[in-house]
């Protein structure tokens, strides 16, 4: 298992790359890299956690996106056929360019989906939840419970459906669902209450141990609240400055504001007494994966400046391809190389 942060870096890099290009060659290459990674890290004995494979996703999304764009977009020189202009909304020429552009959007969505699939396979939901900042620890636990709650609710639903079936209940109209939802709702509330009791008895969200640290904590909270408000103001005014073309000062303010908020969260988190049970070591494999992802994104952004934009309009052209940029994208493959084999 790789450290979840390494996967996060990988995911962010992947998202940046995918969302900054519409060049089909790069998109396809990135998609191939993601799919290879997904294949490499999937546990053979565990059933696929993803409800939908990226391949199947592509099958639906790419034609759909192409069709919709072709029907709605009127730009492009290569007219394939024309729908009578009198037809509302879709009337007009259908162009090859619009079709391709739509398909490219579908491809982009598929690549994004594949990147998330990889993360889903690589990091259990609970590990993801652990990376919610400690200041939001209660939120994290609520999220964790939601993960548990869903399957239990499904099981309960099944139980109630059976219970209603044995008293002659048949599902014909919408109103027939009522007997299922009432027990589900009350049962769910009862369970939620019981869980809350159990968590309190396990010392969850415990208030401060003593009055002394309590006061110190309150002061700390006050301070970090001020800092985060300032940070937020910084980001807002930075955003305004950027809008007025004061890009440098704007960006500087945004970055400072973000840092201030992060610091405030960190401070608040420190005052929440909490330790974690699972140790996630950071080793050479984590360095390799993060390094690979960073090389890919940096290479793509700097080397690929000229080639990464592709626009099929007004007439279809063959997309440009830069070998170095393409090679940089292979950095996303590193997890496939380092994970597996000696997986502990």
């Amino acid at each position, binding site marked *: 298992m790789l450290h979840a942060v390494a996967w996060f870096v990988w995911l962010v890099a992947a998202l940046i790359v995918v969302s900054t290009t519409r060049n089909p060659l790069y998109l396809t290459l990135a998609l191939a890299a993601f799919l290879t990674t997904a294949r490499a890290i999937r546990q053979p004995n565990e059933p696929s956690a993803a409800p939908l494979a990226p391949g199947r996703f592509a099958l639906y999304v790419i034609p759909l996106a192409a069709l919709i764009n072709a029907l709605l977009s009127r730009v492009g020189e290569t007219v394939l056929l024309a729908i009578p202009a009198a037809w509302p909304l879709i009337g007009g020429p259908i162009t090859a360019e619009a079709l391709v552009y739509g398909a490219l959007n579908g491809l982009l969505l598929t690549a994004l989906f594949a990147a998330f699939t990889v993360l889903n396979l690589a990091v259990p939901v*609970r590990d993801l939840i652990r990376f919610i900042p400690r200041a939001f620890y209660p939120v994290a*636990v609520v999220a*964790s*419970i939601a*993960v*548990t709650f869903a*399957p*239990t609710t499904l099981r*309960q639903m099944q*139980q*109630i459906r*059976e*219970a*209603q*079936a*044995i*008293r*002659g*209940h*048949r599902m014909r109209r919408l109103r027939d669902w*009522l*007997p299922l939802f*009432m*027990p589900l709702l*009350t*049962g769910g509330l009862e*369970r939620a*209450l*019981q*869980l*809350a*009791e*159990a*968590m*309190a*008895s*396990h*010392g*969850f*969200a*415990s*208030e401060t141990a003593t009055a002394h640290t309590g006061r110190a904590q309150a002061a700390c909270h006050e301070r970090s609240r001020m800092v985060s408000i300032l940070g937020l103001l910084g980001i807002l005014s930075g955003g305004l400055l950027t809008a007025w073309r004061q890009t440098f000062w704007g960006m500087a303010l945004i970055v400072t504001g973000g840092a201030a908020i992060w610091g405030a969260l960190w401070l608040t988190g420190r005052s929440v*007494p*909490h*330790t*974690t*049970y*699972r*140790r996630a070591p950071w080793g050479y494999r984590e360095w390799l994966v993060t390094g690979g992802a960073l090389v890919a994104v940096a290479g793509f952004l700097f080397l690929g400046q000229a080639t990464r934009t592709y626009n099929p309009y007004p007439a279809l052209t063959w997309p440009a391809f830069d070998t170095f940029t393409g090679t940089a994208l292979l950095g996303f493959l590193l997890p496939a190389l380092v994970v597996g084999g000696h997986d502990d």
Partner: protein
Amino acid sequence: MIDFARVTYTYPDATRPALRDVTLSIPDGAFALVMGSSGAGKSTLLRCLNGLVPHFSGGTLTGRVTVDGLDPVAEGPQGMSRTVGFVFQDPEAQFVMDRVEDEIAFALENAAIPPEEMRARTTDALEQLGLTPLRQRKLETLSGGEKQRVAIASALALRPRILALDEPTSQLDPQSAAELLDALVRLNTTLGLTIVLAEHRLERILPFVDQVIYLPDDDAPVLAGPPRDVLPHVPLLPPLQTLARTLNWSPLPLTLEEARHFMSTDLTDETDFLNPLKSVRSVDKNTAIVEARNLEVTYGPTAALRGVNLTLYHGEIIALLGRNGAGKTTLLKSLVGLLRPSRGDVLVEGRSIARMDVADVCQRVGYLPQDPNALLFADTVLDELHITLRNHGIPPADAPIAPETLLECLGLADKAQQYPRDLSVGERQRVALGAIMVTQPGALLLDEPTRGLDYRAKAQLLELLRAWRAEGLAILLVTHDVELVAEAADRVMVMEQGEIVAQGNPADVLRAAPTFMPQIARLFPEQDWLTVADARYGLSCASTPSS
């Protein structure tokens, strides 16, 4: 260790206090049992120990609770978490994490225990409950007994001095319950942990207990003290103590060994016992209502039923025993068509149900699932019965039994207009029975009907089942409760891994396996007796010639 001084507690919006003027004290290292009928306030009392009452429940609490020198009302449940470990009735409802060791470490994470110590403590807690081999397992893959032990281990991880458990064995089969109790006794003796346990099934627990707290239903004062001082004042007791009381054995025996001591002085081996005339029920073998023929059910690759044959006749009660996961519920579900067998067939009144709708089958064969709450949703008790009739398209005028009459027979006539979910566990179950029986099916299948029932509710259920049997109803009872089987069953079947491995008359089957032996059978191994009534009858016949 635990002191209650004149504690009175009233839930918000309640007219009567749940605890009235309770004064008691539990010494350090005690194994204390909290007993009383449903609604007597057992859970409330336990929740006072760690401040869940009044912090979670609201309401007003007067008097003073002291636990290990702390005031739970001031500390709150979080503050008490290092002093009192709390285990709830349903282990699943209290899990936050998905793996065994993570669940145990959860409390330690909240307490900011340094990682090294956290590992040590987790390992320790796993070991104490015998869970070490399961530490990496997902919670959902564990059995009920294992889950309950995980719940205890996670309560122990914070090293509390008191462990409070709210009906921890109510969902377990007898073997798992016995294992759980063994674990608790070990914790009590080796760690000196003070254990406070609320429980309905006293049979197995009384031998280990050194303190009893009895919460009466009426306004009588709460009794607390050593079992021998308290138990004589408790109206409903397990068979052993009931028998001892009718025979005036004093002091009241808590264990079979103590009871045998009385027998060796009271009853000599020469005493000529007479076996009670078992009312051998002549079942008409031509009136099979439900018949399973070579039934096989598979869940994916695993076989849940492997060739089960069963015939249920009018006017008999069959009890089906077996460990959790033996396939008992699967059998019941396939008998009403909720599960379709991969091989074999089910006949209801001679017709195969393979092509019948579940609703149509259930008009002839009633089925009460384990959790009656899943059935109830109407605004009033009476409505629940009417809804079933409407589901089946039967106008109330044509109902085989008038809903009001059925409610009367269920002892719910005065609750007809109440909201079903406000009733006690036993009453809710009887409402569910009403919702099923209003179509007057010829057979009734019950899954664990005594779960969570106190002795009185159990007695009421038993009476009801016997009355229905007398009217010709065929009853199949799946249960872990051997005392109920001893009282009710005409035939007993034992299931193991999807097969019926033993069947016959109750005296033979129940006495063959040690875990299924009722207390009276254990006490009189030479006799054919199963219930207090059997023993009293036998003993009275025996003592007549000698006196």
